[in-house]
């Protein structure tokens, strides 16, 4: 375990990183002691990944210094970081699936014989030495695509070890592992730390943090909140530090504005492999939440209603009109709009300015009405409280929250009856989240039916009039505002028979 006279191996001092409109890191200090397991905790957007990118040489800090064994270093590229003994094991493994275990471990450093050909014998020996440090036995000649995720992860770690890594950064290493493999991994981590290798461990799972780490650092909104030895803190304190004041807590729901007229009816909607038998009625002015985990079919349902990936069977009725063969263009003209999950890839054209983005779905005549476009975009720009120099600003330079406001503005410009919002607050800061909630409420007050899909259940609970819970593509339960709490939603969304052993922080 920890030992006071162990030396500090990495010291990061006053690290800041600014992106347009966002402070990703704000003067963060972090020190890593030789052989320690240092947990890094924080919600999405807290700055963990930026910090790791800086350590991995993928991006450079705007301020601050990094010291390695007391010497100041500048990490210009991933190559510099590897050379400095820092290895990043990211969620998506950096392996070449077709190549063998040996080749993956030794990639870029395959030893040569005196004839210049590959010296396979010594390559295999080095690879197996690295694996044996992990206490893992693998067939070295098998292509890694045939290995399990846990085994592939081991290969990645072995690759780092064979490069003499002194610090391993593991980003959500257990997110794709089955439960029994998690224990193996934790054992491996303990074994590595006892050999003097430091590990920076990033996870959402508090149970793992308390099982394996020596110290914990909590980040929130780009700031360092606290670093402390693990035995001086408990899990509820960590959650409190991570969450701080949350957007849903800042938001108080006003009176519901549901009118007694249906605007969207969905009957027995089924799409093979995605969801089945989905039925609900959305009324004018209603805010309907769809709660579901990743892969529950939540996004697919919205895409089907919007005509992107039409359903195999079932009926969709908009404002009393039955829709045959829904298409995107058809749904838009029927007054339906979708703000998709991925703003940058599906919601915006980053190379265009704010005004062009806002107007792109509502250009009705072949010749443009420039004054009209300007009026619409200026109006929405103001109403939404978008923070940007002007309507001619490129959307690529806006922060996530402002970008989301532009996506929603684009749809408001079409005068929608139904607005489908897929994860509208993902990756945006607290203030902007509260803005989006208020906006949703204003829409409803004007009689627009809103469907909001989210994996952040607290926000659904505080914003929606009604929540449908999905589990594996089926409607599992339905609650009115105030009827359910986060635990209940989570229990239904994850399937009540599934006894989850660890506590997961779902705020992020």
């Amino acid at each position, binding site marked *: 375990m920890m030992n006071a006279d162990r030396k500090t191996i990495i010291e990061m001092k006053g690290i800041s990183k600014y992106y347009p409109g966002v402070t990703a890191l704000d003067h963060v200090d972090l020190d890593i002691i030789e052989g320690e397991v240092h947990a890094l905790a924080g919600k999405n957007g807290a700055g963990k990944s930026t910090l790791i990118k800086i350590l991995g040489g993928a991006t450079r800090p705007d301020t601050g210094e990094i010291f390695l064994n007391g010497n100041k270093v500048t990490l210009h590229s991933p190559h510099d970081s590897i050379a400095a003994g820092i290895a990043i094991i990211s969620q998506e493994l950096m392996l070449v699936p077709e190549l063998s275990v040996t080749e993956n471990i030794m990639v870029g450093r395959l030893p040569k014989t005196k004839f210049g050909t590959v010296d396979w014998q010594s390559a295999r020996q080095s690879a197996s030495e690295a694996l044996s440090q992990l206490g893992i036995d693998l067939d070295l000649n098998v292509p890694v695509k045939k290995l399990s995720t846990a085994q592939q992860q081991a290969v990645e770690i072995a690759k780092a070890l064979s490069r003499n890594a002194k610090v391993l950064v593991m980003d959500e290493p257990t997110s794709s592992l089955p439960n029994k493999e998690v224990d193996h991994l934790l054992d491996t981590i303990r074994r590595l730390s006892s050999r003097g290798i430091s590990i920076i461990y990033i996870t959402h799972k508090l149970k793992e943090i308390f099982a394996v780490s020596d110290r914990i650092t909590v980040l929130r909104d780009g700031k360092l909140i606290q670093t402390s030895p693990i035995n001086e803190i408990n899990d509820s304190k960590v959650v409190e530090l991570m969450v701080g004041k949350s957007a849903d807590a800042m938001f108080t729901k006003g009176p519901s504005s549901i009118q007694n007229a249906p605007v969207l009816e969905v009957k027995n909607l089924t799409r093979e492999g995605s969801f089945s038998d989905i039925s609900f009625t959305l009324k004018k002015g209603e805010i309907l939440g769809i709660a579901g985990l990743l892969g529950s079919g939540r996004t697919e349902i919205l895409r089907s209603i*919007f005509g*992107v990936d039409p359903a195999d069977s079932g009926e969709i009725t908009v404002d009393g009109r039955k829709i045959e063969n829904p298409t*995107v*263009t058809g749904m*838009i*003209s029927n007054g339906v709009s*979708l703000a*998709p999950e991925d703003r940058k*890839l*599906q*919601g*915006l*054209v*980053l*190379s*265009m300015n704010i005004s*062009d983005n806002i*107007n*792109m*779905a509502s*250009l*009705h*005549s*072949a*010749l*443009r009405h*420039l004054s009209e476009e300007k009026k619409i975009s200026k109006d929405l720009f103001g109403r939404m409280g978008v923070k940007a*120099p002007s309507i001619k600003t490129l959307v*690529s330079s806006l922060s996530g929250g402002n970008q989301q406001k532009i996506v929603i503005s*684009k749809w408001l410009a079409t005068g929608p009856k139904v607005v489908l919002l897929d994860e509208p607050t993902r990756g945006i800061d607290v203030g902007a989240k509260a803005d989006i909630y208020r906006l949703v409420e204003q829409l409803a007050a004007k009689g627009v039916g809103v469907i909001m899909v989210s994996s952040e259940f607290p926000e659904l609970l505080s914003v929606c009039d009604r929540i449908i819970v999905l589990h594996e593509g089926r409607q599992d339960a339905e609650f009115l505002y105030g009827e359910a709490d986060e635990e209940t939603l989570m229990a239904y969304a994850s399937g009540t028979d599934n006894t989850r052993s660890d506590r997961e922080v779902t705020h992020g």
Partner: protein
Amino acid sequence: MDDKKNHIKAVIRDNVPWIMLLVFSALFSILFPQFLTFRNITNILRNASMIGIIAVGMTFAMIAGTFDLSVGSMMGLAAIITLKMSPTDLPRTILTVLVALAAGALVGMANGLIVGRYRTSSIITTIGMEYVVLGITLVYTRGQHITIKGMYKPLEFIGKGRIGTFPFPIIIFLAVAVIGQLILSFTRFGRQLYATGGNPNTSELSGINIGKVRVLAYIISGVTASIGGIMIAARTQNLDPSFGFGQETDVLTCVLLGGVSLYGGKGSVIGTFAGTLLLYVVSNAMTLSGTAYEMQLICKGLIFLITVAASVIWQKKG
């Protein structure tokens, strides 16, 4: 203060082709006394007109996020049609011009449908089309050199004519460029073109028929290739059957020099116009300095490569 600085930076960035054109022209005026003469300048402009018109069309395809590398052969086919259909009187001339333009539109539509429907790489598809069109031209001419005698005078005028001392092709070039820029700036199609090239996913999810947008962009590119071909035929009246093949590189150089993005979504006809003049000013300077043809080819190739590299670096910077 900072805002003002950024604003100036942005203005400079948006006008790099024009700034380069000015700098080079100034430099050549000093180096070569013949450069800044009315005769030489109109000469440059006239030479630039045909390829420039095609570059305007290619700008549309490129903004939509697709390449059109078939314009070289297409220009050739249109030129050969213009000579072979012997437009010696008005009715025959009208028919000839219509056939040449329709050929360009058809080839463009074929490009657009293949790229749009089957989502093939536009580079590969249009290179294939370049060969198909060349083949058609060779079959049509039976591989023979084509000349024409007694071309209808008004048709000859669009390639050779002068208004006063001012060559007429330049006026056509200007007109095509102005119309092109107006379409880009003031029509819904123009906006949809930028949106489609900038992010096809978002565009589709916003109700834009990106297939249709791309087909239209290719038709425009094909038709401008035909216009360029007709003008060259009218000017030379004497062509090799494989004329035009490979000239898409010149067109592409003009477009990229003009700041149109390799990845779509960015650019303008105004930029392409400057890019075209820039390329022809540089080749004119090489001629004035007595550079051998072989050296000129090497230089042109290098300009093309440097432009592509610069364009990629530029895009990465955002």
